[in-house]
Structure formats: structure tokens, C-alpha cells
């Protein structure tokens, strides 16, 4: 993203303060106390409607930038295409794929796609949640602070009367929304592909019981929420890494490498006792929705793990970001 593009919302925010001097404000040294430059009025206005509006405006500008960025759109497009590819391949070569997948022990869900289109959603998510989805979330969340710092736009953002805490919260909210959008997009794309290519109807759960189509859709909604929660936890980790560096690619790469390393640790049998503490281990926990009765205990545990990761990483990001010297 170009510097000019980034400057725009910052300038907009600055203008409301009546101190904007143009498209290219003279870079003023912003000390570590940038949050201190916030007018006292804005602080005391805490929950006033004006504050809410300015939160929303900041958030809207962030989300607009994120969803307009070509690379983010490209990532979303790839995520949306993969369920289509899986669906078409299953439609054309159902037999060999399912046999191969079965030998690997993960074929169960794939064999069911041909019987019911709805299962394509679960199959696609179970594939994408391993790497591609985390990568997409890491790119957005890892870029959040480091990208601004690297582009030299962070200090402009901080000249606006938006405290650092608020900026961080907005950045995080933005990453979470991107994750939710990505997961929903995969689900919708898989749902449409599945319904076009395969028969629809009552769904057979993993437990062998059958539920009506409408309830199946409801369960897909639960899966989307659960996976999004998992991605929100990853976004917090990426955001924490993002506050530690001024090189966006560093934060993104660090997050992706962390995900891969943790996944490798997760499959080492000797370290199986570690599994319940690993973030990646719980991403696949959405299969609990497909059991009868729904495995609420397991999924609840998964959500607790997500919450723990979010709380720890989020507080690290906050401590680092509100206390650091912004030099670029």
C-alpha cells in the first residue's frame, strides 16, 4: 500500500481536530506519549455518542482499507475458489480421491460430500483451517501495526485524537472481522458449490444420525462462528508480533512459522500431552458440531483456549504498543 493511500484516513481524522494542514502534513516527531496528545475532552467523553461515532469511523476506514487492498482481495478469492476446486474434483473423480483420503485416515468427511452437498462446507473448512486461512488472517493482523510503522504512516495515525489503545482495538477488531469474512466466504462458496454439484437434503452427522437440511444450515453457522473464534485468537497472536517489529513481512512470517511449528509439535506422538494447550489443535474442534449430541464440552474447552490466547497476546500487544517509542 502506498503511503499516500494510508495518509488519507489519518488526515481525515486530523481534520476533525481542525489542525489538518493538507495531504502531506509535515512529519512531526511523535514521542512515546502520543496517547498523551489526546485532548482531555475526548478522554472524558468516554462513552458519549461522539466517541462511538469516531470509533466507528476509524473502524470503517480501517475495514475499507483492508477489504479494498488488492492482496487481501486476492487472498479472499483464493479461499473462495478452493471449495469450488474440491467440489469439482470430487464430482469428477469421486472414487480415487476418497480411497486415497481414506488411506490417510481423513477421508470420512470427503466420502460424504458426494452424498450431500452440505458436507463440502465442512470438508473445505477442515482443509483450509490447517494453513491457508491462518495465513490470510496472519497477513492482515501481522500487517496491522508493523505495516503502518514500516510505511511511515503510524505516526500520522497517532496524531489523530484516537488513543493508542483505541487504535489497537480497532486494528484487532478489523483483523477479527476479516477472519469472520474469510470463514463466511469459504462457507458460502462451499455451500453454493455443494448445492450445485451434489444432491442436497437431510444431513448425516458423524454419529450416524440424520438431521433436516435447515438444521444443517444452522450447524454450519455454528461452525463458522467457532472457526472465526479460532482465527480471532490467531489474529491476537499476529497483532502482538506486529507490535514488536516495524517490518510487516517479519510479523506475518513469524506468525505463519509459529503456526507451522506448533502444528508439527502437535503431531509428534511423544509430545501428545502438549496438544490440549496448542492453539492449532483446537481449530479442528469444529467437528464437535457434527456429532449427536453436539460435543459442547470439547468445543467449550476449545473456546476457552481461544480466549486464553486472545487475552495473553492481546495484553502483550497492548503493553508493547502503548509503551513504545514510535519513530516512524
Amino acid at each position, binding site marked *: 500500500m502506498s503511503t499516500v493511500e494510508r495518509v488519507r484516513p489519518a488526515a481525515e481524522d486530523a481534520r476533525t481536530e481542525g489542525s489538518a494542514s493538507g495531504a502531506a502534513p509535515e512529519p512531526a516527531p511523535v*514521542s512515546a506519549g502520543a496517547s498523551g496528545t489526546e485532548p482531555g475532552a475526548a478522554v472524558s467523553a468516554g462513552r458519549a455518542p461522539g466517541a462511538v461515532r469516531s470509533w466507528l469511523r476509524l473502524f470503517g476506514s480501517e475495514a475499507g482499507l483492508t477489504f479494498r487492498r488488492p492482496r487481501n482481495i486476492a487472498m479472499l478469492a483464493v479461499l473462495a475458489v478452493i471449495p469450488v476446486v474440491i467440489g469439482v474434483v470430487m464430482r469428477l473423480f469421486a472414487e480415487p480421491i476418497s480411497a486415497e483420503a481414506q488411506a490417510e485416515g481423513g477421508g470420512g468427511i470427503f466420502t*460424504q460430500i458426494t452424498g450431500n452437498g452440505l458436507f463440502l462446507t465442512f470438508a473445505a473448512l477442515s482443509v483450509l483451517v490447517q494453513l491457508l486461512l491462518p495465513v490470510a488472517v496472519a497477513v492482515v493482523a501481522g500487517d496491522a501495526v508493523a505495516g503502518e510503522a514500516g510505511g511511515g504512516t503510524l505516526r500520522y495515525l497517532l496524531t489523530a485524537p484516537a488513543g493508542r489503545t483505541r487504535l489497537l482495538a480497532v486494528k484487532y477488531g478489523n483483523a477479527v472481522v476479516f477472519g469472520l469474512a474469510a470463514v463466511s466466504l469459504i462457507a458460502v462458496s462451499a455451500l453454493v458449490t455443494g448445492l450445485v454439484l451434489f444432491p442436497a437434503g437431510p444431513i448425516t452427522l458423524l454419529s450416524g444420525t*440424520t438431521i433436516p437440511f435447515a438444521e444443517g444450515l444452522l450447524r454450519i453457522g455454528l461452525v463458522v462462528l467457532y472457526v472465526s473464534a479460532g482465527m480471532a485468537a490467531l489474529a491476537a497472536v499476529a497483532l502482538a508480533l506486529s507490535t514488536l517489529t516495524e517490518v510487516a513481512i517479519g510479523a506475518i512470517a513469524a506468525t505463519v512459522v509459529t503456526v507451522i511449528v506448533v502444528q508439527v509439535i502437535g*503431531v509428534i506422538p511423544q509430545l501428545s500431552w502438549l496438544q490440549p494447550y496448542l492453539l492449532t489443535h483446537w481449530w479442528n474442534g469444529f467437528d464437535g458440531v457434527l*456429532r449427536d449430541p453436539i460435543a459442547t464440552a470439547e468445543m467449550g474447552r476449545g473456546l476457552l483456549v481461544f480466549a486464553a490466547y486472545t487475552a495473553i497476546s492481546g*495484553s502483550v500487544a497492548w503493553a508493547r504498543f*502503548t509503551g513504545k517509542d514510535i519513530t516512524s
Partner: protein
Amino acid sequence: MSERTPRPTRQPTRRGRAVRWGVPIAVTALVAGAIGAGPVIAAVQGDPALPERTAEQLLADALRAAETGPRPMSGTLLQTASFGLPGLPQAAGPGGSTSPAALLAGSHELKVWYGGENKVRLALAGRMSETDLIVGGDQAWLWESADNTATRIKGDLSPEAHAAQAPKALPTATTPQQLAQEVLERAEEGTAIGVTANEKVAGRDAYQLTLAPKDASSLVKEVKVALDGETFVPLRVQVYAKSAAEPAFEVGFTSVAFTPPAPENFTFTPPPGATVKEQSLTEIGRELGADPQQRRERGEELKGDVKTVGEGWTTVAVLPFSVEDLTAESAGGDGSESESAAATAEALLESATPISGPWGSGKVIRTKLVSVLLTDDGRLLVGAVTPEKLAEAAGRK
């Protein structure tokens, strides 16, 4: 942009920064505390207080509870096995295989619903798959979601026949109740019975009964049975080997509720599109037993060729067997299953140590709980005893 002087009061000082970093540290401590809270709370509360009972009283209560049959309940079972099988290729794949043969190593979670006589559901969850055994009334089904197969189990489903066949045919049917019953029935002269500190199991106060074999040649140090303080239902069984401090085998509830489960759990209709098969229990057992040794054992058992030497804890089973048979059988099979079975057998044989005596010579495989002796004259001796005891049994033709 006009230059502004940052107000000194909001300027983060070194001290302010330290305070900020206190937040993540506090959050981390909070999370760590939440993880560690369970054992700590248990330690603070101390052992649950239950009315005093002697070992004999407990044993009688437990047997009585076993006789009247378990009451309706549901819960989650955790089974952990570390038999110390030497060089066994990892049976469970990443994420846990749903193959019941995989229950032999590692830890596995099993969900149990019990609604009374002939109403049982067991669910073994794997990643994106599930294996269910559903017994409802006069019907019994085995559902494997990975293969999309529903198998109707033929044969006598009366409780007696079921109890007699199921544990052998289906390793998944091993519940604390069944295991405890077997152990308690064995608790005769050769056993030292004792009571240890009460414990909380699955959130319930429980008595702990220990059964230890008196015979020194047994590999079992002791068996601990946790009995529910109210219902005397076995909640957990731990088998300790002499060579390890951790239990070699443990099966117990991690959560349990003594309320009748929903009736839907005990009905099963094969879903549309599923392969429906019909098999008898012994056929299923043979298919599920991926280990050819087990398969062989079972086959021989059915023929009635098994002899036993000794009794109680140190019973040794003697059956005809030869290495050639094993490899031939493995080679004769087809598909990846027999390949992995052959690999398992090979790995086991490689770890065997040669042994000889007046009775002849053979190879011994020793694990924490079980020793296996393959004699060169074609016998297989199995028992929870030391290899020396096996050799002694081999001498007694």
C-alpha cells in the same frame, strides 16, 4: 500540523512501562492459574470425606452394585495405555485414529451412554470421524463414519451373551465396570486387599480399593479401583506395573452423570447412502483385531486349543503358534491393514530376546504388564508374569 507539547503527566516513564507490562504478566498468571486451579483446589480441599469402610465391606458393596447392574448414566471415559510395547509403530495417526486397535497405545476418549439393560451407546470420536456402537433393545449397530458403513450385529443380544462376547470382540467395550468386575471376581486368596485415601474422580467423591497380587512373579504391582461413594459404581480402574510409577493402563470417567440419557441415543437407523452390512460379533472382532497375534489368539480360543497354567494373577495362557504362521498370515492378507500388521509383528519380533532352558528355547517379548514367550517348538505363552515364570510354565507340558 501545529506542534504540541506532550503533557508530562501522560508521558510513559520507565516505571509506567513496567506497570504496563504487568498487565500481560497478570493475564498469563491468571490463565496459568485457571489451568492449574483444578489440582490446587483439590489439594486444598483435601481428600473427600466419606463414611469409613473396610476393604471387605467395600468389596462386598462393589460386587453387590455389579450384580444389580449399573444404573442409567452417561459420561466420558478416558483410557490411557502405556504397556511399553517395544518398538511398536505408532498405531494412532495424528489426531487419533478411530480404529479400535489404536486403543492399545496412547490415550483415548470414549463417550458412554447407558440407559439400562440392552441400551448402550459408545462413541469413539476421531478427527472428523466417529465410531459408534449402539445397542437398543434387540438391535445392535456398529457405525463407522469414516467408511460410511453401518453394520448390524447379528446374534444373541441378551445381557449374558453380550457381556460374555463383547469385551473380547470389541476392545471399545472396556468400561471401568467391566474391568472392575473382572478384577473383583479374581480377588481371592492370592490378593492383598486394602483401602487407600479417598479421591475425587470425575467430580465425585470416591473410595479407593487396592488389590495387589501376593505372588512375586506377577508383573502387576497393584490395581486401584475407585468406587463412587454413593452408588459404588467403579469410576476408575488403574493397573500399576511393578516397573513404573505411572499406571500402565488406566480407564476412568472424566465426567459422569447418573441420570438416564435421552432415548434417541439408543436408536439407530442407517443413514441414506451408507453401506449396510450384517455381521456376527466374532466376525467383527476378527476384522477389528488388526494385530494378527490377537486375531490368531481369538481364532485359537474359539477352537478351544488354549491351555492355562497356574491360576489367579499368574495365569499363563499356552497356545499353539509359530512365527511362520504369523508371517504367512500377514503376507496372505491384502491391503494396507495387513501390511501394517506385518510391520507390527516384525517390530515386535525384532525386539524379542532369545531365551533357553531345560524346556527348550524361544524368544521373549517383555512389556510392562505382559510377557510373551514364543517357543521354538511352536507354542505361545502369554501372561502378566515375569519371563522366568513363563519359562517355568513352558517346562510344564
